[in-house]
Structures are given as C-alpha cells and as structure tokens.
C-alpha cells in the first residue's frame, strides 16, 4: 500500500479526482490483475475443439475432400444438401461449436448434409483454376452425391465466395441443381461500398501472385480483412480480459480465434481470375464470364433460389448481394435479410433460432 501511495504522490494524479476515476496506479494495478488472471486462465485452457459434429470422408481428389455428416435417423428431407464454402478460411465456421452450429441445426431439422473441404493450397496448386474448382471439384462432388442417392438433382448451398462458385456452377449445369441457396454471396461487384471492392480496382493481381510464388498468402488476406474494421482488434483484445472468469464466453472467443487464424493460401490462377473477372470486371452480372469451356449465363438460373444477405456485412455489403434477384429468370426467388454481420450468419443466436429453420423450411417446401 505504501508503494501505491508513493507512486500516486510522485505522479500527482490522485488529487481531487472523483471516486469513479481511477488514479494511474489504480488503473495500472487493475489492468495488471486482469492480465495476470488472463494468463492463469489461458494457461489452464485445454485443447480448443471446433467442428466436432461427426462426419465421414466419402470422396477425395488430391487435397479436396467431400464429407457426409452422420445422422442418427433417416433424413426427413429426401434431397441431400451440399455445402460449398469459400476458399477463404475454412468451412469449420459452419460448425464452430455444438450450441452454435449451423450443421447440427440442419441435421436436427432433418437434412442430409454434405460439405466440401478445399484443403490447404501450396505452391504445387498454383495452376489450379476457377474451372478446376467449379467444373472440376465442385462438379465431381455434385456428381458423386447424385450417383450415391440415384437422383438427377441435389440442393446446393454456397457461402460467400463459395456462393459465387455455386451460382456459376448452377448456371452452367442447371440440370443438376434442384434448389440453390446463396449465403452472404457477392454477385454484383460494381458497388464500391465495401473496401475490398474499392481496393481491388488498383490491384495488379498478376504481379502479386507471381511475386508470391503463384499463391495468394492467407496471412495477407487476413491483414486486409483486419483493415476493414481497423479498431476491431484493439477493442476485442482489450475487452476480452473482462470475460476471463466466464468459461463459456472465453471458449467461444477462443474458438473464433482459432477459426480466424486458420487461413489457407489461395491458388494463384483461381485467385487471379476471381479478382480480374469478378472484382475488377464484374463479368458475371454483365454476362461476359467464361469458366473453362463454358460461358456463364445467369439466364440459366431457373431453379428456386434463396439469397441470404447480412444487413451489417462489411465484407460483402448488401448492395453486392441483393441484386441477384434482378439478374436471374427464376420465378421462385426469395431474398432474405439477416439482421447481423458476415459471421453472425453462422454463429449468432438468430442464426440458430431463425435463419437455419428458415432455410430448412424453404428446402422442405420445395423437396
């Protein structure tokens, strides 16, 4: 105590302050204790598990894997659902933890769910193109499920960039898709509300990919994502010390941290086409996009479409997703506004209680 008072006197700051205001020493002591508590708590944390819903590997080609989630009972919706996540980060976000899992909710509500894992790109994959991903791997997964279930069409759900891939695939192979769901998916790239859309205008993507040995480093992408909300990290890491005594909240935080840190590199050729043809050229909406030997025409999207966008999405702002309905001839299009952000679509309470049941009902009505 003597030392505390001495420091206060030296710094001459404890004078005349209202009791709600901490002196420098008190503030320092408070922070120190919180940091020490954080240290002790984090030291005791066991392995952080994410994506724990049981699943089986059913198909594999190189680094790309297709999983089918295990079910206790037979699915009540007969058409299986394939989830195509983005190449950015991993599909673990769909199954972050048991009580915040879109996958578990889908299973509980009667869906038969498959999911693609894109694996970890290395320099060996630098020449993998959008055609390889969409007509090759995604197409092979679709065909596998069709054959496995002996059906002509399956349900396809695409997330973010995976939504754009799913849309392109459905436009090229409409005969294989019964219902299409796009979640937080960029479609109209002309809107510059999002910083990523603005920045891409100036990017010499050929040079950057070449200089990085043919891949786009995941860490570099994470830096650009951090810049979209420049004060988010100081806010996050300053406040987290206040939840150290709440194990549930802390584990939720750490699971998200683990997911964010897992950021695979991107195959250079695919990344180049995605930036040049979509972010810079907006060719999908213009009807000028070609993927491999196929011309992509949104006029072919005649199947039912559920387009989900997040109202506060800073990665894919609503004006980039909403216009989809204007560019497709399908007579059964529903645009769903989710009141939250890009990540909230998967992990928020509303995701569990409102969005997931809405998706399953929408599929059930069209089964």
């Amino acid at each position, binding site marked *: 105590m003597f030392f505390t008072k001495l*420091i206060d006197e030296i710094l001459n700051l404890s004078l005349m302050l*209202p009791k709600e205001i901490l002196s420098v020493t008190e503030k320092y002591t408070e922070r120190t204790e919180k940091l020490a508590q954080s240290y002790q708590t984090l030291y005791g944390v066991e*392995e952080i598990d994410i994506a724990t819903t049981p699943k089986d590997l059913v198909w594999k080609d190189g680094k790309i894997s297709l999983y089918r989630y295990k079910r206790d009972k037979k699915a009540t919706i007969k058409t299986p659902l394939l989830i195509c996540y983005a190449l950015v980060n991993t599909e673990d976000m769909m199954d972050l933890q048991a009580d915040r899992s879109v996958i578990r909710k889908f299973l509980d509500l009667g869906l038969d769910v498959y999911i693609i894992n894109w694996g970890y790109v290395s320099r060996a994959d630098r020449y993998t193109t959008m055609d390889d991903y969409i007509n090759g791997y995604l197409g*092979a997964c679709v065909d596998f499920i069709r054959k496995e279930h002996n059906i002509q069409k399956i349900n396809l759900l695409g997330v973010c960039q995976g939504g754009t891939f799913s849309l392109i695939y459905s436009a090229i192979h409409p005969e294989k898709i019964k219902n299409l769901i796009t979640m937080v998916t960029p479609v109209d790239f002309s809107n510059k509300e999002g910083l990523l859309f603005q*920045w891409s205008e100036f990017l010499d993507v050929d040079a950057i990919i070449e200089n*990085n040995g043919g891949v786009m480093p995941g860490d570099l992408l994470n830096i650009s994502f951090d810049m979209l909300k420049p004060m988010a990290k*100081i806010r996050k*890491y*300053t406040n987290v010390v206040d939840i150290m005594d709440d194990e549930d909240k802390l584990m939720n935080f750490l699971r998200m941290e683990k997911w964010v840190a897992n950021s695979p590199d991107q195959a250079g050729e695919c990344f180049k086409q995605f930036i040049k043809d979509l972010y810079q050229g907006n060719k999908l909406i213009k009807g000028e996009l070609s993927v491999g030997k196929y011309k992509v025409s949104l006029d072919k999207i005649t199947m039912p479409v559920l387009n989900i966008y997040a109202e506060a999405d800073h990665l894919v702002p609503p004006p980039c997703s909403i216009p989809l309905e204007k560019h497709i001839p399908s007579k059964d299009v529903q645009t769903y506004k989710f009141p939250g952000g890009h990540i909230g679509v998967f992990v928020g309470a509303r995701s569990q209680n409102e969005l997931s049941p809405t998706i399953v009902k929408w599929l059930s009505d069209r089964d």
Partner: protein
Amino acid sequence: MNKPYNFFETWMKDLQKQETNPMQAYQAYLQQWFQPEQPKKAELGSPEFFQEMLNSQMEMGKLWLGNVQTMFENFAPKRKEASLFEQWSKMYGLWNQDLGKPFAGSPMKSNAAETFSQIMNYSQSYMKMYELWQPFLEQLNTGKKPKKTALQELMANFSFDKYNQVIENVLGNITPKQSEGFLEQINDFTKKLLQNINEQMGVATEKGMGEMSELFNNFQETQYNVLGKVQKGVAPFLKMVPDSKEKQLLELSLKMQNDYAQYYVKSNEMQVLVQQTAQKGVEKTFKVLLDSLNKEPSKVLTYEDFFNTWLNITEPMVIEVYRTQEFGKLQAESLEISTAIKNHFEKQLEILLEPLPIAPRSEIDELNAIIHELRVKVRNLEQQLTEQQSIEEVQILPITKASRKTKNTNSSNEQ
C-alpha cells in the same frame, strides 16, 4: 497480487545501482559518429575507387531515407515531449517483458498463447491511451465547467509522438521504420558481390572508371535521385561484366534497392495519411467529450468513456481514408513492390543454390504446370467416359425415359 509491486521495487533499485549515465554514453556515440576516421581516397579509376563510389551511394541512400522520414514526420502531427508517465510506461513495458518471457516457453495449448500475446500487445496501446487521457482527466473531472480554451490547451499538451506509436501498433500494417534495416542488408550483400566482380574484372574495370567518375558527380545533384540512379550509374559497368552468377545477383540486388526506395516512400505516404486522420480523430474525441461536459458539468467521465468514444470516432475516419483512391493506389503499389522484393530474393537464392543438387522452384513450377495439365486431361477423359456410359445406359432404357435424359444433358452451356 504482489508481483507488480515487487517488480517495481526491484526495477527502481536496479536503476539506482547503474553507474554509467546513459546520456553520456549516447553523446560519446554521437561524437564518434560525426567525427569518423577519414578514409583514404582511392586512386581515380581503380577498382577500389568504384567500390568507394558505390559505398558513397549506399551511404547517401541511407541519408536520403533518413531525410524522407524526417520530411514525412514534419507532415505528421507535431511532436510533444513525453509526459510524466514516460517513466511509468517504461515500467509497464518492462513488466510486459517480465511476464512475457516465461509465457513464451509455456506449454499452453492450442491458440491460447497467441491470444495472450495479442492481449499483451493491445494492453500496451490501451494503457498508452490512458496516459494521453490524463491531462484531460485533470482539467475536466473536477466538476467545473470546462474553460473555452480547454480544447486548445489539451491539444497543446498532447503527446502526438506517443499517440502515433499507439496508432502504429493498433493499425499495425503500416510501419516503414521497421523495414529500414532491410536496406543495410541489401547494401552489404551488394558490396560483397561487387568485390567479387572487381577481383574478376581487374584491368577491364579500371578502363571504365572515367565514365563512372562523371556519373558520380551526377549522383550528388539531388538526394532524391540517388537510389534511382544507382542502377543507371552501374549500367555501363555491368555491360562490361561477362554474364555470370555474380552479375545476375548484383542486378537483382540493385533492383531490390530501387524497389525498396519506392516502397519506403509509399509506405511513409500511407502512414502520414493515417496519422493525420488519427490526429483529427483524437481532437474530435476531446471536442465531443468537452461538449458533453458543458451540457452536464457534474458528469464524471471515466477512461472507458474516453477510450470507447475515441474508438467509435476514429474508426470510421480511418475507414474513410482507406476508402480514398489515393490510399487504395498507394496500398496496391506498395504491396506489389514489397512482393517484388521478395521475388528478387527468391531468384537470388535460386542462383546461389544452383551448384547444389537441389531442384529449384522454377523447375518445380514447370513440373507443377505439367501435372496440372495432366490432371485436367484425366478429368476431361473421366467425364467423357461417364457421359459415354450414360449414353449407353440410355440406349437400353425405354424411349420415353431416354428422351428425358437427353433433354437434360443438352441444357448445359458448353461453348
């Protein structure tokens, strides 16, 4: 928790024990810096002369970078000497180190260690902002209505130096100062290369020195042009050098110097844009808080009020800077340049590894391209095979089913 108090006491005792005055040591260092032993001038036209000339360029390059930094700092918010809390901040930093060391070696599982490292890092910024907030606290939390000149007084006493450190830490990615050591590394490497080439070239090099001395004068015209002209200046010399690994390495090093100079300017420009905006952010924060106190003089403002108001005000302002074409272009250019430097390094490494029985990346890339081509061919053949099997199956099905299948197959968009 007694640890911090014990640490303080130990730290203060250690300070008292120190016999050498750090300031005196620093002054001695500066004297040595400004009065170096004069090197002997090499004979004009000798290989040593060229070596010295290049060394001079390197030194001037470093000077130029220093001047660029000073220039940008002049554009950045003005400096203010550290406050009473400077010492305290040091203690805090030392404490961080004290706790950080045992932590680094801890068997913490999964990403908890990384999380704690981030918490420590941002805690420093949080506490630095607390120091900056203190004058505000003193002036305004006394229950009296703030003076009309309160904002000017606050800003006059505000340490922008510390504030810029916070901004650098929070926004992290724009830190040109961190890369300054890079130039030195390239310089050292280039010097060694040049020495090797000089040894090999001998007399031929001496003949070229007449032209070089003329160029040397040009280098002194403006500091700005120094790094850009390194390549041009050495170009005639390089023409005389036969193709060799050393020549390739030297060319790549010179490219790196040139790229680095451009990167340095661009990253400084970006930093200034952000720092100027961040200054406006803190000014606006003070103004908003002053206004709220004017409306309600008895209100007590806590640090959290200040911190959250500052974050909420500054973040959209920084985003607006990021949104500008100016920033977008600078960011794209600096990214391209920084990755180009990385590429030059890799090429140099490949040249250096050539004698060893190691397949270089360029050869592996050729293989990767061939493997990719073959995979696509296999995939196409498999698809054709599947389609052929489907057609054969359809032929043995009743006509009605077959026609439906054919119709479905035709609905794709193949060009």
